[in-house]
């Protein structure tokens, strides 16, 4: 499909959805308004709320806080995941001993940790960062662990025959392999960093997109809730686009057919 036509069709979906939303929330059908504005708001109200946020500039502070929390959670969670992933993969005994605890920690729904982090770290950004880290860490950890363990035995034997020392094996074989697995899960881990930040804000914060949505919800301002959701969605799409661009640069060596690797 030509690119222009694709974009037009994609835009058409949004236009139809918003038009339906507008009609059903504004005009009664057989005497009933199917989407009562109290519960569903209207596109006009939501748009004016968004425009108001940007016009007054209130939104920037919240966007910045969420962005900051997401980046910190992603970076710190990734570092932890890489270090522990490497450690486990190279020390099978440690991995075997700690395995049930890792599984246990990963199975825990992270939301239940939010109140504890708030208790420990306060209402500022760090309780949200901590929540994001617990989400990002496991994704990166599992991928790095897999990446180090699944280095092709032939490539490894070849590296040895080419005279690589343990340190050189680390640098030229294990590390690139682990990174390739980590990058292939970049979208997921970045996404989870944002989820951690927003959920944390939602449960108790003084700023951020999650806070904005929670505040609006608290006063039954449905337009505010929807406006917050739309801004959040746009925010995630922008970040995802940036991640795609980075991924494309970093994984030039990878054949395109392998892109779907988990």
């Amino acid at each position, binding site marked *: 499909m030509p690119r222009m036509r694709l974009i037009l069709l994609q835009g058409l979906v949004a236009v139809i959805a918003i038009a339906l939303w507008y009609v059903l929330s504004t005009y009664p059908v057989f005497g009933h308004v199917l989407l009562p504005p109290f519960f569903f708001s209207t596109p006009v109200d939501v748009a004016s709320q968004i425009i108001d946020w940007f016009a007054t500039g209130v939104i920037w502070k919240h966007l910045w806080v969420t962005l900051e929390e997401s980046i910190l959670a992603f970076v710190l969670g990734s570092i932890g995941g890489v270090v522990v992933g490497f450690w486990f993969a190279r020390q099978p005994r440690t991995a075997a001993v700690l395995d049930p605890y890792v599984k246990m920690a990963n199975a825990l729904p992270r939301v239940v940790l939010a109140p504890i982090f708030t208790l420990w770290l306060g209402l500022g950004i760090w309780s949200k960062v901590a929540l994001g880290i617990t989400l990002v860490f496991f994704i990166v950890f599992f991928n790095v662990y897999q990446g180090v363990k699944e280095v092709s035995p032939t*490539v490894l034997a*070849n590296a040895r*025959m*080419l005279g690589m020392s343990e340190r*050189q094996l680390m640098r*030229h*074989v294990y590390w*690139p392999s682990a990174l390739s697995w980590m990058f292939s899960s970049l979208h997921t881990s970045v996404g989870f960093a944002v989820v951690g930040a927003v959920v944390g804000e939602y449960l108790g914060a003084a700023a951020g997109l999650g806070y904005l949505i929670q505040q609006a919800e608290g006063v039954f301002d449905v337009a505010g809730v929807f406006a917050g959701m739309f801004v959040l969605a746009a925010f995630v799409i922008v970040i995802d686009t940036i991640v795609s661009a980075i991924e494309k640069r970093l994984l030039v*060596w*990878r054949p395109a057919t392998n892109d779907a690797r988990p």
Partner: protein
Amino acid sequence: MAGGAAAARDATASAVALHDVSIAFRLAGGGTYTAVAGASLAVADGEFVAIVGPTGCGKSTLLNIAAGLMAPSAGRVDIFGASLGTLNRQAGYLFQADALFPWKTALQNVAIGLETAGTPSDDARSQAQTWLTRVGLGSFADRYPHMLSGGQRKRVGLAQVLIRDPKILLMDEPFGPLDAQTRQIMGNLLLDLWSADRKAVLFVTHDLEEAIALSDRVVIMSAGPAARVIGDWKVPLARPRDIGEIKLDNAFHELHRDIWHMLKAEVIKGYAQTEGA
């Protein structure tokens, strides 16, 4: 240092000598499987030896032992007269499967073998470029392995191994996955590069024609389990050879017929075993 090196490279000693090598694997069920039993084999310096045997006779395992990637269950391996304890530092190994680093370009793949030995990066790269040109891939330096064809990857692999100038070249069905024409071209390329400095070569293949066309000696292994060396044939064909043309030679045909007569029985035996399993 000089004395040590001289002792390690005794001029009269074989480049590779396997003495009564046996290889046994422990099975999951508890017993052991003897893949190779009492195999002896010597490759002189500068000699091109091909090992031919039916599928599953343990010829690749024998190569891994000569490389020091595996230790034999019994027997001894001598490299230039010195007993091999760890990795064979004098050998280059061309693998059957893809062994290039997928995250490195062709040039980086070739240069890495020098860089690990401490050659400065610039120097290693310029030598790598020379080697890529030598294997006919001078303009493919920036390609990653997945952008190269199977034959081109083998060329890069050959350059990657030869740039380190190993005294011994171990090759495990290196051209196995390639199509017939590419195999022939690669075989000629290999002979070309080899004739420049005549390394000792141990070349494993299941293709008898390829073995005769390339080598000075063809060693036949019996079907496993407990495979051993059952035949050792000199190839009295003149060099330099062209692999395509030499197959039309009468001497080639006679040798092929004689060796095949012996190999055929083993192939049938080996085939029956894999079918029965």
